[in-house]
């Protein structure tokens, strides 16, 4: 009864009805777009749990007939998980830490000091973001191989090339990190700096005791982003690390080859080892799982980080 009443009321009030219909349309649109967004991931998840029979069976579309964890065992073995995970973790953390420190210093310089040619350096920061990596990567390779030859230091296949790049502010998407810091530091009132300066603090002391301590949010945001970017970076990493360090992204990219090479050593492979999609999807899922967990806990920081980055140039 109540329903009919409200329906009648709505019907008479055409404006409200119109609003309701638009709202429903908006929801339908947003939900279907979400579906398209998540489709590859859902498909990946469902496939990762499928047995060999389910994959071949055309009647099995989404839900596996039985949950099979053998794919994860295989993927785990081929990716060499405990080791690859640890090396990826420290590799990424080292790069992210150095990138965070240097971009913070750069952001501070731009936000607080009025030095000569500041505008020009600003433009250079944007240029460093826009120019494609291939244009700079060949001299970089030559540089590091020369250093390797000259000083007989192992460079290619280690973390050092990328570490030196992010320590000098040329890591992945450093420009965005600088902009995040720049905008954050500019929001901190200048009077705080002055108060500390009157008390006799040097510029570095001001930076360390005032700015850094007030910018834990920005530091966390940049570190998280930098972590994710370095984790996902494959182009520069495959160029410099190659197979020197067992990194998840490289191991995933070369999964097929590794699988073929390991052959019958893989558990559950009798006779000729045959690769299938389920193994690959399980491996893909494993390699993105740490990031998914990070995102689940820190999604607010990620989204706010982009919102406050001021990339849009105000």
């Amino acid at each position: 009864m109540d329903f009919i009443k409200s329906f009648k009321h709505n019907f008479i009030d055409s404006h409200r009805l119109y609003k309701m219909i638009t709202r429903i349309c908006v929801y339908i649109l947003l939900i279907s777009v979400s579906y398209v967004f998540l489709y590859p991931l859902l498909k990946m998840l469902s496939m990762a749990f499928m047995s060999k029979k389910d994959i071949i069976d055309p009647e099995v579309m989404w839900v596996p007939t039985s949950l099979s964890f053998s794919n994860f065992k295989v993927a785990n073995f081929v990716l060499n998980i405990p080791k690859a995970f640890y090396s990826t973790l420290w590799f990424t953390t080292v790069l992210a830490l150095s990138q965070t420190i240097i971009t913070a210093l750069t952001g501070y310089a731009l936000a607080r000091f009025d030095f000569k040619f500041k505008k020009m350096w600003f433009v250079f920061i944007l240029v460093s973001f826009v120019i494609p990596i291939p244009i700079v990567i060949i001299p970089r390779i030559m540089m590091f191989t020369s250093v390797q030859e000259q000083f007989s230091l192992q460079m290619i296949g280690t973390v050092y090339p990328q570490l030196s790049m992010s320590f000098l502010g040329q890591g992945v998407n450093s420009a965005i990190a600088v902009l995040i810091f720049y905008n954050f530091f500019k929001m901190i009132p200048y009077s705080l700096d002055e108060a500390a300066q009157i008390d006799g603090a040097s510029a570095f002391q001001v930076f360390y005791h005032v700015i850094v301590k007030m910018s834990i949010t920005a530091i966390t945001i940049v570190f998280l982003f930098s972590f994710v970017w370095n984790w996902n970076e494959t182009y520069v990493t495959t160029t410099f690390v190659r197979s020197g360090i067992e990194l998840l992204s490289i191991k995933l990219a070369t999964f097929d080859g590794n699988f073929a090479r390991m052959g019958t050593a893989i558990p559950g492979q009798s006779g000729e080892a045959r690769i299938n999609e389920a193994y690959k999807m399980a491996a893909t899922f494993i390699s993105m799982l740490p990031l998914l967990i990070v995102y689940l806990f820190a999604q607010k920081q990620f989204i706010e980080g982009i919102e406050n980055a001021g990339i849009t140039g105000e």
Partner: protein
Amino acid sequence: MKRKNMHKSRQNLMGYLFMSPWMIGFLIFTAIPFFYTIYLSFNDVTLTVRGWEMQWNQYDNYISAFLRNTEFIPNIISFCIYIVIYAPVIIVIAFILAILLNQKIKFRAGFRLIYFLPVIIMSGSVMQQLMDSGNTEMGSLETSVIFMIIYNASPILAKALSFLFENFSMVLWFTGIPIILFINGLQKINKSLYEAAEIDGATSWQMLWKITVPLIKPIVLVTTIFTIVQLGLYNLNPVYQMIQDTIYNTAGGLGLASAFSWIYTFVVMIFVGITFYIFRNKDGQVE
């Protein structure tokens, strides 16, 4: 006066001191390599026991890139078509989604969470695995009549279009950051503008075109450039893979790879330039 000078020089010193790591890095790893690649592209580069050896060969690498190599030019063309088709699609979809998400709806945070998720997990190897296993394909266009017609006219265009439809998810994955930027921009638009327009009897369609779009234009510029940069980075881009293969290929060597990267960079810069030109302010200012 003296004091002022001192203040000024201190500002200079401190600014350069704090920024010096970045500046040195920019010089060593970006500025010098950028120009050095131009120089390399006119040379034959080989690695010998004495280090890198260069032999000037004039335009030979460029002749190879344009005339001898059969793959490079088609790859560049298909990259251009990808950009021309995908960048507008990504920007328009991101804008529409941002407008929808900017309304008072339930589960806003949830939708935003989903739309931003790809930014976190998107990597070259993940995309490669997902696309290889066919998990990004939601449907196929290749059997339809329209596809056949386009295919007859231009196979590359048809391929790009069918890729757009088949891997629509992948294309949507690039909207993550643009959506956030657009929402941020929409929230900064003064609400009273809409109220004033409403009083004057404007429809929401008119308000969209007369208020929202003009005010959001600077953000469109930024997101478009961002998208062009991002689109270059992943497996959708055949040129990157080709440059990487050439680097390791001893026959062509680094000289040819430099020529490839220079042509590629030039193309990207043209796209960035076009974007600036389209979305420039009327006063001719960039920012």
